[in-house]
């Protein structure tokens, strides 16, 4: 099947890449610090580049527009004064300020840099960068290598990390020299032939419907990963045609797949950790790049074509695999319409938004769109208008996405896909379809798959699952494409011990039971544990199934090696030892294995009982209960509030120019008299700086928090979005750490807020319900912003929903979500027979609930509070969280609403939060599982500090 027009090309000359390289390297990071030495450095680099024409004006304009803000003359004069006041051999270098908050990082240190030392560092860096007689870039590949090396050397821990401290502008110290050079280079490329730059906004879909058509966690993860992989094809194509610098969002160097593409040689020989990284979905499906207007449509065509080709190639690989498995005749009969379903799936929208270099043209464009240019200032280039132009292009893409197209109608009379319901399931197609014939086709597919090598590792399909071409491709993409012959990740599906575990995702039961599994790992030598594992082994032999291996990085290295981690988490729940449950869960037929199964199951159940006794007796728990696994886990969906407004310069909390200038030593009075009260325009450099921070957060920091520190697993983490599974035990600390990570100085700063939806469900509940609940909760959190909405679906009880603040101040002390864990610990500790805390008594919350109607009226607040205190803590010590939840719910950022509105709001619904909060605490105490948080986190730390040695 052909996809796109194959004749489209975007010609680039060596001069194009050389000029981009010049823009990346010049002015050097020392240009503003050591103006005197710059000429020599510049001459040296220009000689190396050997350009046909210098094009100084083009480069000057690009730098100006990348910087994107007009710094008044009087500020420049101030700087000059300060410079002259300092000894000539020293450079006072103030710390960078945050690009979004405009605040100075708390741990920031102003430095005095010695010019000589700086010169030596520069020389060492440039020598290293141009080492090996590096030739000036002459094509896409060599330019990309230079750009990546530059970013690599300047990254934290890189040989020239000092470069990351050099500001792009000495006054506006809110973006780095690196971000500014990146955008200047992108602009030089886009304008080189006298052309105009354009912003190319891209959207690849469908996303939600594609990802959430998932029966199990691995479907969910793979759906998310495939969308990430497909969207990456477009990003990569743009990066190849225009350079990686042209991709403003996401930051190309932080993408795991981009890092893979830089590697040469045999990928199969790479380490497990590296391969693991390539399987992390962090490419957003919506992104933006700077391209040249003349070629913009061709670039768009090639980018979209790359996405389509990759998807169609994936479908073709799966179809080929199935044809080989089923035989040509059976495949042809059952896979009718396969290609069509695959071809119709993708939705790709692009907008090419002009970004003229002429100020009048930009202002006229914005005026026509009835958008206000925030900075209609003197002729200082169009860099200041970047935010408005970016916002216009983004909104145009949003408007385009609102225009509906119907999927082509090629349906037929086959049964619909059991996973998505959006297309006909594969199977024989005829005018008079017979269900038996159609069922037989699927049974045959199952039978043949079960004969494949490593079939006992995975249940590819269950009986009764009938999938369309899209869901089939999702289900089998790992087997036939990603880790099939010649797969792009260097993985081999048939390497069941090494590679296959990397392509799998833990079950929700494994996530729910993760803390207990970590505990058992340290008890692996105990007789009861060994016996339990032995009987599970025997049981697995009978049901012809293998332990899946450890799929949680927080517990240890992925794959098999430690028995207690290898077996699936379901075996830590007594209810999994039911005969029918075992047969159903492993899709086995009781007639074939009946008697043998009964014996093995009885033994395994018995061994599990002994394991429980061992856990109860060997370790004295705080509340004398045995250590056990809670069946509950959490789905966390979160993102940054109003990220779009931060980027298009319309956010209420954006810093003013005055605040930024204050960091350069300009006094407030001075700045005000100079008219610097307007907000600091979001330039392309500033956007690139934010993208880099988002990229590092998504690709590294958040994974470490969720997976390594809190035993969870991330499904998707890209841009400002996260979707993750977390055990109940670690949920609150994990949420706290995520919020801290997002609002850290090194990330998005203290002014951004997050909204999160958390769904706490039993692992036996359908996965899609938990996902829906989490998304719905996130939507509710978004209505308020800056809070967490928890949806607790108790297996045998009324659901609880409540809204929690991320943190609040109490008498100058910071309170955050981690306190909830501490409160639960406290409750559990005092839970002794005969001395049960009032809150854990069956009556407490119900009494409150009943009395709420009477006590919630205005004027009875004191009585309400007294009642809560008496019921919860008769000794009068009430945790600040309870007080907080008795007061109004967390107010949205910004000015608080008038008092009467707050009171009414409280009367209507807010005061009920304390009851929900008490119910939540009671639930958490019940599901505590006897494993203290301190002990659990000690074990996690111990595991993290150990060198993992694979047996």
């Amino acid at each position, binding site marked *: 099947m052909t996809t796109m027009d194959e004749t489209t090309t975007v010609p680039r000359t060596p001069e194009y890449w050389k000029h981009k390289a010049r823009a990346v390297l010049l002015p050097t990071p020392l240009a503003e610090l050591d103006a005197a030495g710059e000429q020599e450095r510049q001459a040296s680099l220009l000689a190396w580049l050997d350009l046909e024409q210098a094009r100084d004006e083009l480069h000057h304009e690009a730098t100006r527009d990348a910087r994107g803000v007009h710094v008044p003359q009087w500020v420049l004069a101030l700087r000059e004064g300060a410079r002259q006041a300092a000894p000539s051999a020293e450079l006072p270098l103030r710390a960078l300020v945050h690009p979004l908050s405009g605040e100075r990082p708390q741990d920031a240190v102003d430095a005095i840099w010695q010019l000589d030392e700086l010169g030596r560092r520069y020389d060492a860096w440039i020598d290293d960068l141009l080492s090996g007689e590096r030739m000036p870039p002459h094509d896409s590949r060599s330019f990309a290598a230079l750009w990546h090396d530059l970013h690599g050397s300047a990254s934290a821990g890189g040989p020239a990390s000092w470069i990351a401290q050099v500001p792009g502008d000495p006054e506006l110290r809110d973006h780095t020299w690196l971000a500014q050079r990146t955008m200047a280079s992108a602009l030089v490329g886009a304008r080189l032939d006298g052309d105009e730059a354009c912003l190319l906004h891209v959207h690849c879909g469908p996303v939600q419907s594609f990802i959430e058509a998932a029966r199990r966690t691995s479907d969910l993860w793979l759906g998310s990963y495939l969308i990430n992989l497909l969207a990456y094809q477009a990003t990569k194509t743009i990066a190849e045609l225009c350079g990686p610098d042209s991709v403003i969002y996401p930051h190309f160097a932080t993408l795991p797949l981009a890092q893979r593409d830089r590697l040469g040689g045999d990928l199969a020989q790479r380490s497990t950790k590296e391969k693991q990284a390539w399987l992390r979905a962090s490419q957003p499906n919506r992104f933006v790049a700077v391209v040249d207007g003349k070629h913009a449509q061709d670039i768009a065509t090639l980018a979209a074509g790359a996405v389509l080709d990759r998807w169609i190639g994936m479908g073709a690989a799966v179809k080929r695999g199935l044809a080989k498995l089923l035989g040509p005749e059976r495949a042809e009969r059952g896979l009718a319409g396969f290609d069509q379903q695959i071809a119709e799936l993708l939705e790709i929208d692009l907008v*090419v938004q002009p970004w003229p270099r002429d100020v009048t043209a930009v202002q006229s464009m914005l005026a026509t769109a009835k958008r206000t240019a925030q900075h209609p200032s003197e002729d200082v280039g169009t860099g200041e208008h970047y935010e408005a132009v970016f916002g216009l292009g983004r909104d145009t893409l949003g408007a385009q996405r609102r225009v509906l197209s119907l999927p082509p109608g090629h349906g037929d009379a086959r049964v619909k896909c059991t996973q998505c319901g959006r297309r006909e399931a594969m199977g024989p197609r005829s005018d008079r379809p017979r269900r038996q014939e159609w069922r037989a086709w699927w049974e045959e597919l199952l039978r043949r798959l079960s004969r494949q090598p490593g079939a006992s590792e995975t249940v590819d399909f269950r009986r009764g699952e009938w999938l369309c071409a899209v869901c089939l491709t999702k289900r089998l993409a790992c087997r036939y494409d990603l880790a099939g012959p010649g797969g792009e990740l260097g993985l081999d599906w048939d390497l069941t011990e090494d590679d296959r575990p990397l392509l799998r995702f833990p079950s929700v039961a494994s996530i729910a039971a993760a803390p207990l599994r970590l505990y058992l790992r340290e008890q692996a030598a105990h007789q009861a544990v060994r016996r339990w594992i032995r009987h599970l082994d025997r049981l697995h032999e009978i049901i012809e199934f293998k332990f899946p291996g450890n799929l949680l990085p927080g517990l240890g290295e992925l794959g098999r090696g430690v028995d207690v981690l290898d077996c699936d988490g379901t075996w830590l729940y007594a209810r999994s030892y039911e005969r029918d449950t075992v047969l159903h869960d492993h899709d086995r037929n009781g007639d074939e294995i009946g008697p043998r199964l009964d014996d093995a199951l009885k033994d395994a159940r018995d061994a599990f009982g002994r394991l429980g006794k061992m856990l109860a007796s060997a370790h004295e728990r705080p509340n004398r209960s045995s250590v056990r696994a809670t069946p509950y886990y959490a789905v966390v969906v979160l993102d940054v509030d109003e990220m779009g407004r931060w980027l298009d310069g319309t956010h209420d909390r954006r810093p003013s120019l005055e605040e930024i200038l204050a960091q350069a030593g300009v006094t407030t009075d001075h700045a005000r008299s100079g008219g610097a009260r307007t907000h600091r325009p979001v330039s392309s450099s500033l956007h690139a700086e934010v993208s880099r921070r988002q990229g590092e957060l998504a690709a590294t920091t958040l994974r470490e928090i969720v997976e390594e520190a809190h035993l969870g697993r991330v499904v998707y983490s890209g841009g400002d979005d996260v979707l993750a599974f977390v055990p109940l035990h670690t949920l609150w600390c994990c949420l706290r750490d995520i919020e801290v990570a997002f609002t850290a100085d090194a990330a998005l700063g203290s002014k951004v807020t997050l909204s999160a939806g958390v769904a706490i469900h039993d692992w036996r509940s359908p996965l899609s319900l938990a996902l829906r609940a989490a998304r719905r909760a996130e939507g509710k959190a978004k209505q308020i912003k800056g809070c967490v909405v928890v949806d607790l679906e108790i297996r045998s009880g009324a659901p609880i929903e409540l809204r929690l603040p991320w943190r609040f101040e109490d008498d100058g002390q910071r309170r955050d979500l981690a306190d909830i864990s501490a409160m639960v610990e406290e409750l559990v500790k005092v839970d002794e027979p005969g001395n049960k805390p009032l809150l854990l008594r069956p009556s407490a919350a119900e009494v409150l609930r009943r009395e709420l109607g009477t006590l919630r009226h205005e004027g009875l607040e004191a009585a309400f509070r007294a009642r809560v205190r008496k019921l919860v803590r008769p000794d009068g010590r009430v945790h600040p969280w309870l007080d907080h939840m008795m007061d109004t719910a967390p107010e949205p950022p910004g000015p608080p609403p008038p008092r009467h509105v707050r009171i009414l709001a409280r009367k209507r619904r807010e005061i009920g939060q304390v009851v929900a909060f008490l119910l939540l605490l009671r639930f958490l105490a019940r599901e505590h599982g006897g494993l203290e948080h301190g002990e659990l986190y000690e074990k996690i730390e111990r595991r993290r500090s150990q060198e993992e040695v694979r047996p």
Partner: protein
Amino acid sequence: MSDEQSTTWTLLFEPLGVLVFRDDRPFDAGRHALAVSRFPLPSVFRGAVRAALFEAAGADFRRPGFGLGGEDAILGNGQQREGFTLRGPLVVRDVGGNPGYEYVLPWPRDAVVTGRRDGENGESILQAEIMRARHAHDPEPTCLRMGAPDEAGKRSLEPLRTALPWTEASRLPKPQGKPWLTVAGAQQYVQRSSQPESAPLELVEGQDWLEQDSFLCEEKRVGIARATESGEERLVAAESMLYTLIAWRMCPSFRFAVEIDVGEASGVGLHTRLAALIRQLDGRLVRLGGKSGHARVTVVEDALAPRWAQPLASQAPSSSKLWLWTPGLYDPGTAPGAIATMGEAIRLGGFDMAKHQPRPLLGALDRGSVLWFSALDHEALARHREERAKEQDLPAASYGYGQWIPRSNA
């Protein structure tokens, strides 16, 4: 209007319990763990009303031709479609007085919520803007979209050929919740849509809009499947045999409603007979929403559409928009005169009882979708709808019921 003169009736359905309107996913308890309901399609109510009318006419479903003579012209048969048009389902709420009910209408998708604030009495006020087609910018951005596959399966990037829906508001927030419009809210929307320059809508909760959860909420039900792996057909309350069903529960003061219309050309005899049959349904229980689902019917001898509503395409000016109150069969890409469509795509499927096989899926527009027309050609549009309906043998008139509104694009 007297009984004899009435050509339109409204049937109100009061659900007596939770209702299940499953999506197109096959569901076998024990194999699948989740069955999800969606908002009911016109075909659901068409089936329920026809079955109820057959029963009212004394049909015996075990006998050939159901033992009826001469009712085919009214109720239809395998070869002939019924002699009435059914429009719906819609949602109505009890507002007291006479007729006592008014429509609650799906949110028009060309109105975007730009903000939400609390009113003086703590009520929630939605601020919404109605999108207009964007005028040319200079320089104009290029909008590109991946086209549908051609016959060879080739897809290419094409310029967007439709108008671009636009608001002057900067970045629009993500949609939150599922608001519906009351008649008062709908009237504001219709009036503002026709005005060249208009201020944003300010819609007060309860008065102008309602959240879907407040009248139709999802309810989870857990069932137990039969254990077949063991070769037995017994009920086993093991965890793996539990399945979840998402059903709908409707608030007591709300009803589903359908309008039944008999054309004036149908003849007095047909009209009288249908009127008699419909009248018999008043107060009856009909099967609706799952095997054990029932609803009580109330017959209202008129349409409930508000006076200002113009449901007839023929009265719409050439520059109009259609706000769909029920799913529509128009294809935005080929509907004559359509310059842009905002909304959601759904797929119509179901099971063809006559052929005893699943129906092919057909793409359609969900309720609340809005189509903008320029140079509207009523006849061509009707033909387009008929042709699409034929693809799945659906009664075209039952789909695409909504409000025609003169479109201002200033």
